[in-house]
């Protein structure tokens, strides 16, 4: 099966996030970028399918943030082809709607049977890449997917997650775009040495894609951290002191039994 995976860079939420001087956007210059978590799962799911069925995995990304490292890491995990779409604005990535059109332009001649993308990126506000991409390609789409397997040569069986650990199983005819929430197993770990080796043995193909003009339909008036809510009463002291206070609290509330 010929599979394409689209990956994105997002600000690392472990690091503090800043708002830029406009007060309307993230200060991406001060952010640390990492691979979008659900895209990592999309890559893992693609590799699992390839291992089960044969085929190839192409990984595509827009040239933004620390994307080369993510692409080489994908090669170290087993991706066969790395494609970087050129993007010349270092201050912001393309809007999801723009990115979808750029990826669609590159994907059409690549002609994969299946495109996997993380269902969401945490910095998306007014657009979601995978369904936009599906509409651009004219392919069916289902998201919040937590498992994909072959359906006896008839396409795929896909599990979509619902609350309460309930799954809906769908038969999916190809080609299709799937929005992956989680792969069937955790994303595989690759040591830095293998990523370094992939940097020498793999090549990132740089590709130009037409950047469509895009006027945002949603105007951001203000971006800010949430105002402090009524915060928790903080318990301070050594671990032993805090433990004693919590235990006393639970006893007082009748929760020790």
């Amino acid at each position, binding site marked *: 099966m010929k599979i394409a995976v689209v990956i994105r860079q997002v600000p690392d939420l472990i690091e503090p996030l800043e708002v830029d001087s406009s007060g309307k956007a993230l200060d991406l210059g001060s952010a640390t970028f990492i691979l979008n978590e659900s895209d990592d799962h999309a890559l893992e799911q693609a590799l699992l399918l390839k291992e089960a069925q044969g085929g190839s995995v192409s990984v595509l990304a827009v040239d933004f943030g620390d994307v080369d490292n993510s692409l080489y890491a994908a090669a170290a995990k087993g991706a066969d082809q790395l494609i970087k779409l050129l993007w010349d604005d270092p201050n912001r990535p393309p809007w999801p709607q723009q990115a979808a059109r750029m990826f669609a332009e590159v994907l059409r001649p690549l002609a994969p049977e299946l495109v996997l993308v993380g269902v969401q990126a945490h910095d998306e506000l007014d657009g979601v890449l995978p369904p936009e991409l599906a509409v651009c390609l004219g392919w069916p*789409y289902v998201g919040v997917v937590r498992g994909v397997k072959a359906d006896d040569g008839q396409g795929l069986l896909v599990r979509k997650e619902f609350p309460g650990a309930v799954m809906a199983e769908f038969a999916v005819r190809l080609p299709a775009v799937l929005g992956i929430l989680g792969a069937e197993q955790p994303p595989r770990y690759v040591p830095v040495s293998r990523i370094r080796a992939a940097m020498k043995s793999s090549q990132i193909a740089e590709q130009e894609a037409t950047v469509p003009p895009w006027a945002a339909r949603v*105007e951001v008036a203000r971006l800010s951290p949430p105002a402090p809510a009524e915060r928790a009463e903080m318990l301070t002291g050594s671990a032993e002191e805090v433990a004693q206070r919590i235990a006393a609290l639970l006893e007082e509330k009748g929760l020790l039994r």
Partner: protein
Amino acid sequence: MSASDILVLAETVRGNLSGIVSELLGAARSLAHATGGQVLALLLSSDGTPFVPSLQAADRILLVNHPALAEYAPEPFLAALQAVVQAETPRAVLIGSTSIGWDMAPLLAAKLPAPLVLGCQQATIEDGHLRAVCGLCGGKMLAEVRIQEAPAILMILPGSFAPASGPGKAEVQTIPPPDLPGADGAGIVFRQWILPPPGDVDITSQDILVAVGRGIQQKENLEPIQQLAEVLGGAVCASRPIVDQGWLPTTRQVGKSGMTVKPKLYLALGISGAPEHVEGMAGSDLIIAVNTDPKAPIFDVADYGVQMDLMDLVEPLAQAIQTRKK
């Protein structure tokens, strides 16, 4: 039809109306009051009649009945939703931030095309403009947005709006379905529901839950936490990253795509408090959160907080509880 109406997608899952629908109707009522329009509840199913009594908070209930809508499938649902939205031309379409909503809202916005806002926690009409407040970056940022174009597609975060109350006198209207792709023509066809395997602990019935998040860092750290839960007489549950890692089964996941729990004690260890997780545990009687990040959103919903590495606290806490129980 009116560009001042507010349309709600009333989704059903396994034959039940989703819990968020009453919140969507509440949000829609508030917006419609400002626009002077009506609240429309759209139900897509094989036969929506049994759900009519639950949708009386709307002014009009629109039923699209078709065999292809008996169970959720993206293509017939999108085709029916798009046809109704284009016919009714509402000011806004409210869709829950749910598994179905994550398909329908962005697909509808892409197809129409129309403006889309994710993670919507507030929505108002001011000076004729639709304004919304939305969370992003795992709840670490809030965006105040304005949307002029109609229809605006708002994905509503559960727990953000008061449910609509009181029975109304909704007019019921059955709308002829457009041509819908059935099992033969659709690319994605519903096969079956898969329920969680029986036998695991039912975390929704536990009085005490010890919840772990990304802060536990490695699977081996689950063992002392399991011991703490046993000392407390409770069970271990988790946020999504722990389940994604395969460290705990999906039956232990709390949050939007997991279980909704309301225990007497929710001890949150190393959980940041992303909106998707808080959605599943905010109703707990007592919440104690432990996190190294003093700005973690979990401290906004917790009653008590501890800024500390959770692994430093787990063993002393188990010992302190054991001592008091003696």
